[in-house]
């Protein structure tokens, strides 16, 4: 059996206040395994400990207990970091450098020759769509541009394990699509990606597996295909006609979602009620606009899991 790319066992971390008078246990025995070539999404509410977990993996903070192994080695090893790429949340870099100077500087930290640094800087700038702004000082970069240059430094060494903390934040829709493509390209090339995100639609689109961080542990984890039910859970019906409360059948399971002009959008929970509602719409002289079946989404699963607390 191949060795896991990342293996975390019994991880614990408590943040202490001034003079240790107050303390807060953020991570309480977290276990996690990442196999080579998978895209794993770490989800959780604000303050659940996603960034803390990532910082411990990268030895930016030290755990109180537990083990972290990357490629089978202790995570504190300096050499193994040449196989890692990391994009922090809301990254900030040396504002007096230009994008290209910044990447060349980081290239030096990997011990690359001058030619190698130039080549890699050029390639990654191209990959993140920053070639035309490469010679502009970072102080003039927008939030989205900083996010892109942050992704460039994370990919500079063509890492085997890429760790991204909220990679989509600060990006416009086109930027999000491009980042999604970058992550999918990494996966296609057999790289392992570990990322945290609040944006569940992105996580659903790119993750093979997700884990929901709950009370300092991974509460629910698995392949999206296993976690999300393929069965239709409900329907969304849009019609034009009388107000919903005038035509709603007795004992109807579902409810009105929104009204826009003459159009009403209704959630229907059972197939029988769908037929009854369609009859009622016709009987009241209304017209059907659309019916869409809804399967369980990652957002439904997330809300269910987090609300179960």
């Amino acid at each position: 059996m191949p060795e896991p790319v990342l293996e975390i066992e019994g991880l614990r971390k408590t943040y202490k206040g001034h003079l240790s008078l107050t303390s807060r246990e953020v991570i309480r025995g977290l276990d996690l395994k990442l196999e080579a070539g998978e895209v794993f999404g770490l989800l959780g509410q604000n303050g659940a400990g996603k960034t803390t977990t990532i910082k411990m993996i990268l030895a930016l903070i030290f755990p109180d207990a537990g083990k972290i192994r990357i490629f089978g080695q202790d995570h504190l090893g300096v050499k193994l970091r040449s196989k890692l790429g990391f994009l922090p949340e809301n990254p900030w870099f040396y504002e007096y450098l230009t994008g290209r100077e910044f990447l060349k500087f980081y290239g030096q930290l990997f011990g690359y020759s001058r030619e190698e640094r130039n080549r890699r800087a050029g390639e990654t700038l191209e990959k993140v769509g920053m070639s035309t702004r490469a010679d502009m000082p970072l102080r003039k970069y927008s939030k989205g541009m900083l996010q892109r240059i942050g992704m460039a430094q994370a990919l500079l060494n063509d890492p085997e394990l890429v760790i991204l903390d909220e990679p989509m934040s600060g990006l416009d829709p086109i930027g999000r699509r491009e980042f999604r493509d970058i992550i999918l390209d990494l996966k296609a090339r057999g790289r392992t990606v570990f990322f945290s995100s609040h944006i569940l639609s992105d996580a659903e689109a790119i993750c093979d597996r997700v884990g929901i961080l709950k009370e300092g542990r991974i509460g629910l984890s698995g392949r999206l295909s296993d976690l999300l039910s393929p069965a239709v859970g409900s329907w969304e019906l849009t019609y034009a006609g009388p107000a919903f409360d005038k035509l709603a059948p007795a004992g109807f399971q579902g409810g009105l979602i929104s009204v826009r002009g003459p159009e009403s959008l209704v959630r229907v929970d059972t197939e029988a009620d769908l037929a009854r509602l369609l009859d009622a719409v016709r009987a009241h002289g209304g017209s059907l606009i659309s019916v869409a079946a809804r399967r369980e989404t990652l957002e439904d699963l997330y809300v269910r899991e987090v609300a179960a607390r």
Partner: protein
Amino acid sequence: MKTIAIATNTFREAIRDRILYLILVFAILMIGSSRLLSLLTVGSEEKIVKDIGLASISLFGVATAIFVGVGLVFKEIEKRTVYTLVAKPIRRSQFILGKYLGLVLVLAVNVAVMTCFFYALLLAKGWMDFAITRAIVLIFVELMLVTAIAILFSAFSTPILSSLFTVTFYLIGHLSWGLLLLAEKLADGPGPAICRALYRILPNLDALNVKGMVVQGVEVPMTQVFYASLYGVSCTTIVLGLAVLVFRKRDFL
């Protein structure tokens, strides 16, 4: 190589910061104004010019070392640039040493520029005495130690506290000889022993101060310069070692 890369980047950061030029301009103005101040005194114009010149190099060097030094590590953590840097294949000790060497390089350039102006002034007046260089070498060694202290405090404290601690260290370092005098005055009890112990623990920055001797024309032997430099470099090494120890286990929250 990685340490040099961080040092070069630190140097680049400093030279792209306008505050540094401001400090340098003030220092050069101060050296230049020593000529004016000397006109107010009678008979000792040469000594006044040399005194103010050396004091300016020392004072503005220390100001740069403290006020740039205390922000060096703190800023990296505060602005979160350290996150991606430490996640690269570098040791935390390389980070600290790189930051330190970068600032020492800045100070070397600063001291060199101030010295050039100072020498030009002395040459113009025909007062050039190359013995002054010995005092400047020791000023630079002192700046190396003060920078290390600033970085040590900056590795675990805020810039304001670090500045306070470093200035306090600088003052104590220059007044530690007073502890020996105090030990002589205190006849009984543990007082004298405590004063002597403190004197031995605290770095003696006055050992690096030969400005008065040079200005007065007293010869400063090369052996004194050598041993004083050795003392300063040893203290610097110990302080940097402490900074690395503190920084190695620090959480970047």
